[in-house]
């Protein structure tokens, strides 16, 4: 079997923690945004849509640098958060989670939006005629019906977050035990003369995690779809 060293375990566990936190925090925002984009027409909607997709097309190093400018200790938002709430992103694992969350956000939102768009709105009307206020309609009909897309978005976002590299290393650097995720650990290892074996082990772990996420996503989506089709 793979003989994973403690240092490698640290990177793996950190990656998992960063990706899980990034996904969990991004999900409510993702659902809200997906709903907004699927259902509402408002001024500046296409600009918002483009903005959300920006991390997908910008060079990750640019996104990471912008995060550093904004959320760094001397950044506008980062300074405020550090001084008033004691939340620090720069060179911390929380910053890695923020970078991963931002980078994976477009992938997380997309399936959610598609599934909300696919909902038969006449079911929501039916709920209204039965006395459900709009927010209750959302939580008892819209959200359960969008569940396959929400889960698919979460898994996809997670898979992207766990592999994120460019923005993370730019924003929070590559500190073992704090910000060194699997990707940045591999990057360091392949630059060290005898790091090939360790890098190889982490590469296998990456592949297993990514494949696992895809299989889980598929399984969730199939189960949820079956549920929704009334079987």
């Amino acid at each position, binding site marked *: 079997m793979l003989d994973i060293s403690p240092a490698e375990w640290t990177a793996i566990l950190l990656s998992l923690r960063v990706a899980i936190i990034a996904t969990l925090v991004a999900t409510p925002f993702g659902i809200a945004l997906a709903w907004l984009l699927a259902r509402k027409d408002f001024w500046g909607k296409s600009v918002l849509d483009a903005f959300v997709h920006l991390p997908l097309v910008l060079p990750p190093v640019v996104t990471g640098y912008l995060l550093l400018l904004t959320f760094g200790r001397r950044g506008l938002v980062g300074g405020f958060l550090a001084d008033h709430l004691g939340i620090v992103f720069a060179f911390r694992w929380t910053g890695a989670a923020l970078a991963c969350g931002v980078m994976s956000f477009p992938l997380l939102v997309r399936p959610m939006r598609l599934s909300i768009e696919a909902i*038969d709105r*006449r*079911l929501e*009307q*039916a*709920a*209204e*005629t*039965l*006395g*459900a*206020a*709009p927010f*209750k*309609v959302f939580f*008892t*009909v819209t959200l*359960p*019906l969008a*569940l396959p897309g929400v889960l698919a978005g979460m898994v996809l976002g997670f898979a992207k977050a766990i592999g994120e590299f460019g923005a993370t290393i730019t924003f929070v650097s590559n500190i073992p035990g704090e910000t060194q995720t699997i990707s940045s650990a591999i990057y360091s290892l392949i630059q060290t003369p005898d790091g090939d074996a360790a890098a190889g082990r982490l590469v296998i772990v990456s592949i297993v995690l990514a494949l696992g996420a895809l299989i889980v996503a598929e399984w969730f989506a199939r189960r949820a779809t079956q*549920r*929704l*089709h*009334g*079987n």
Partner: protein
Amino acid sequence: MLRVDVEKQLGEFSLEASFSSQGRVTGLFGASGAGKTSLINMIAGLLRPDRGTIVIDGETVDDTAAGIHVPTWRRRIGYVFQDARLFPHLDVAQNLDYGRRMNRLASDPAQHTRVVELLDIGALLDRRPGKLSGGERQRVALGRALLSKPRLLLLDEPLGALDEARKLEILPYLVRLRDEANVPMVYVSHDVAELRQLATQIVMLRQGRVTSFGGVKVLT
């Protein structure tokens, strides 16, 4: 009691209807495109009139002059759609219970039993809507609407999607509903035979206008 006096412009189509009904079952009769569904949707609050008033059971739910428009979910109506619209993610029992939960009504096992027996849906309770026949679905939809304890039950061609045999299967339930459930109904249909059996009053619509109003005799 239901009083309707509304105007609505929908693209090229203009709807102007005024009637007041005390009947247990008010039949809205007319060919397709006569404005029946638009009218019932206005009563439900799903569509907002351009001008006019709607009064359900003494409460003004729409009055454009006074700026009143009570949202659908506060109208305490029940609505049975042609396509049932059961919630696919809930089983039959949960579908039936939905209106009670949303309106925060205390559970009423006696009424529940009565409705389930009236509609003969006891054997379906733990099934999913996807596993029901068209007729069963429509019966569950009726039960779901009734159990939300509406003061007015709206039915938009509830038999429209069913074949002849299924229609004959459901009609007796609707007659029992009329005679036993004690909820006034508005029943939309283009089928004369159906309305003859069910309605106590008829509003006849043609191209967005009420052409006659009265007892079932106007259907001849």
